[in-house]
């Protein structure tokens, strides 16, 4: 049974029909790559999949159930990474991550956070306010959530590679690959071509005025 199934979904934003009657399934262990030119509604699609936005019509099912009906189970198994990083500027990186873990019922200790931040090559930047970090570094702090939420079944990523350097992109690709091999499902968009050696199903959104 598919992790996520989308049945004739149409979304309107600022009174403009972005796309209509879109239908696709996401099965466990699959990488879905959402393609489309700017303005085709990729971000809006991801926000609808995550449950942040109500679609105009159609439905999104998580393991056969509408996401509005199983909000808790869906929340426990979803990790969302949008344009806005979800990292507070005044707190330090460690505080941000610990707070995110508390929010998502993930047990994490400060040592684990320091270790993961070291892997994300953020050594020495862990305990200063995030405002002092560069855009790329802040993005790495936000990426740390993928290392922590072990029992997640679905990742939704909205152009995760922007502002990341080559080493960061390699790190993230590696993390996505291991997650997929362990049976996780990933839905993502990216303006760079994907370099993950993994079978990808593509969903293309046409741009209609």
């Amino acid at each position: 049974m598919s992790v996520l199934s989308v049945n004739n979904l149409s979304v309107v934003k600022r009174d403009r029909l972005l796309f209509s009657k879109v239908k696709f399934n996401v099965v466990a262990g699959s990488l879905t790559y959402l393609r489309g030119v700017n303005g085709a509604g990729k971000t809006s699609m991801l926000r609808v999949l995550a449950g942040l936005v109500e679609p105009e019509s159609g439905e999104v099912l998580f393991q056969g159930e509408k996401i509005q009906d199983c909000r808790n189970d869906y929340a426990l198994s979803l990790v969302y990474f949008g344009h806005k990083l979800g990292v507070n500027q005044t707190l330090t990186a460690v505080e941000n991550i610990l707070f995110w873990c508390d929010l998502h019922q993930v047990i994490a200790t400060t040592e684990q956070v320091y270790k993961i931040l070291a892997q994300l090559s953020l050594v020495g930047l862990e305990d200063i306010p995030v405002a002092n970090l560069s855009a790329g570094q802040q993005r790495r702090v936000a990426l740390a959530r993928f290392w922590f939420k072990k029992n997640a079944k679905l990742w939704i990523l909205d152009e995760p590679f922007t502002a990341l350097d080559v080493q960061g992109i390699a790190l993230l690709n590696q993390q996505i690959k291991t997650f997929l091999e362990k049976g996780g499902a990933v839905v993502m968009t990216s303006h760079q071509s994907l370099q993950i050696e993994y079978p990808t199903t593509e969903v293309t959104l046409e741009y209609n005025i």
Partner: protein
Amino acid sequence: MYFDGFQSFLDMGGYGLYVWLSFGVSFLSLAWLWLDSFFSKKALFKNVHAEQARLARIKVASENSENNGVQV
């Protein structure tokens, strides 16, 4: 000593409350101001130590990544 006893000194001709309140507030404010400045100086030095610790951590990390290749 102008006052004949400690009691009348405390009483301040009936205005004890106001006099002691004024002197109390003045010297408490001075003390608070001094302590605040003093402890923020301490905090600044603590900041410098934390900064040094950070630099040390970065040096250690960069040494590790040099000797076992770029850590992916």
